């Protein structure tokens, strides 16, 4: 996934689409965000300068689907004591198995992105809404972790269709898109196979202005961000005083 931060308007359509697609539960009281469940969260960040030099950037953050150390050891996967989360080597997607999870929250402590959410309460939807829940995604129970799966059920569907068409290995870009990608009105989110030259993300991730969130931790995220603004790059990773983001090293953009 590649997210162009210079295009994102912060409308949060991606969040709404995700709630709907993945049966993400919510409560009446949602003011304490650290108790909210969301598989993608839009952060508002600023350059910290006073008006009129203030600049704002909106940063949608799903699970980074980290490849982790040595491709296959994301920070959250190896710590799970009950194999309730796993790394899918063909797709690079980090899975979460709610019925296996017993809620120790070690993965939550291991994830530097706070992408993993705990079900502090029983999931409850207003009576009418229950009829609109997606049949493709199981709702999660109280006491377990959940997180973004890059709409894995859509991948399964696309793979099944490709199989019936007789070309199981070749899933076309348009056949598998996440809900957040499709909902983004400004086209800020692009989704596809990073290793497939026919997919847009293959080219986008090679942009000079592409970077990954907290990349220096060595988590190898599968989500890339694009921004031409230096302060945005600086706000998305940690640098010592004398260091510069790679895209701007030796320049004062």
């Amino acid at each position, binding site marked *: 996934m590649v997210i162009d931060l210079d295009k994102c308007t912060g409308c949060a359509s991606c969040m709404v689409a995700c709630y709907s697609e993945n049966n993400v539960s919510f409560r009446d009281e949602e003011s*304490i965000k*650290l*108790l*909210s469940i969301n598989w993608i969260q839009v*952060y508002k*960040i600023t350059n910290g300068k006073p008006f009129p030099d203030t600049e704002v950037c909106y*940063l949608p953050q799903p699970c980074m689907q980290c490849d982790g*150390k040595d491709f296959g050891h994301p*920070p*959250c996967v*190896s*710590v*799970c*004591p*009950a*194999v*309730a989360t796993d790394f899918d080597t063909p797709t690079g997607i980090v899975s979460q198995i709610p019925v*296996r*999870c*017993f*809620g*120790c*929250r*070690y993965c*939550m*402590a*291991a*994830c*530097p*992105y*706070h992408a*993993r*959410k*705990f*079900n*502090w*309460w*029983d999931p409850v939807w207003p009576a009418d809404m229950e009829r609109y829940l997606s049949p493709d995604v199981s709702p999660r*129970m*109280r*006491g*377990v*972790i959940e997180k973004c799966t890059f709409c894995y059920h859509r991948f399964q569907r696309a793979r099944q269709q490709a199989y019936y068409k007789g070309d199981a290995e070749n899933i076309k870009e348009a056949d598998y898109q996440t809900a957040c990608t499709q909902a983004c009105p400004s086209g800020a989110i692009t989704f596809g196979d990073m290793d497939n030259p026919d997919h847009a993300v293959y080219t986008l991730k090679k942009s000079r202005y592409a970077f990954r*969130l*907290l990349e*220096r*931790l*060595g*988590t190898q995220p599968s989500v890339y961000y694009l921004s031409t603004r230096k302060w945005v790059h*600086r*706000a*998305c*990773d*940690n*640098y*010592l*005083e004398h*260091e510069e983001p790679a895209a701007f090293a030796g320049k004062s953009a």
Partner: protein
Amino acid sequence: MTTSAFPEGVKRCSSGKFILWLLPAFLVLLIAAYAMFRVWFYGLNQTNMNDAYGFAIWIWADLAVIALGGGAFFSGFLAYLVGVKKVKNIINFAVVLGVVCYTSALILLGLDVGQPLRGWFIFWHANIHSMLTEVAFCLTIYLGVLIVEFIPVILENPKIQKIRFFHHLSHNMHEIMAVFAATGVFLSFFHQGSLGGVPGVLYGRPFAFREGLFIWPWTFFLFTWSAAAVGPLFTATMCRLTEFITQKKLVKDDVYELLAKISGWMLLTYIIAKSLDTIYWATVTAPARGFAFMDFYSNNPAYYGVWILIAEIVICGFLPALILITQKGRENKKLLFGAAILAIIGLCINRWVMVLQVLAAPLKPFQEEWFVYSPAWTEVITTIMPIAYGIVLISIAYRYLPLFPQEKELNP
């Protein structure tokens, strides 16, 4: 002739006084039981934990009591494997303390998980790469070993000794206790280490992450070493507290001094290793990830800043170690136990830092503020619970079991 329920030749207070003494502890246990019911029945929303603070005060208490309970394994190691005879005068007490600490730890862990009824998944669907799996296995088996070590102590009760079968069973169990002590040392080495590995392997958390040897981060070895160093000091301090409460001398001073000497040298070597680890982390590990040393000690809303590190390493590390390695320091009991208390506080600070400060430290530069959490009453009372439970179990054990072989001689 009827046999007294008390150990032979010792005096105990009246039943009324004993019950009165236990009442406050029972009250705490009752409130804690209600809190546990709420957490198990209504879920973890009864606590103040959140998605940033997934580990909270329970886990700190867990790590702290396990480390302090390490006195049992290390005293057992000294008494049964190294053959330090003097330690046998305190080993029964160390075992009881160990049982208190480890059962408390397991109860707190059972309370902490979101789906307690699935707790067995950790054994059934075990992920052998997870430090927590290693902790669960070693902790559970070691508690079993501790109980096996505790059984012959229970069987020493005069009433039970009258039953021929139990009399022989206790004798035979004493004979093979070295085997269990060795098993306990092996298991304890691993789970103390694995608990250190729990934060140490978190490479997404630069405050906790440490390089190491093969699969084990340095914290693996530091946790084991610190538990072995401070555990016996905790045993000695609790023994002294029991002496103060009962107004009796229970253990000869040379036992305390021996434990203090061994612990002092271990504490000194530990704190030197810990300092080297901190220097390497501050100058190599953290900067490689874009963090300056003071990033982790600035703007902390808990106000302790870098003082928490100074308190842990200097005031509660080097200072007590230097007191305990000197003969004058050990001979002066106020200095000895003052140093022991400092070392215990230092160990608790270390576990606090490695669990709670890890989660509080901000990682994303655009989220500059530290995460703040204050425990709910349900968490506070269940964290205090091990103390009340310890008071009850130790009081009952002291009253009815021969915990201190020197008591009769010291209180003619």
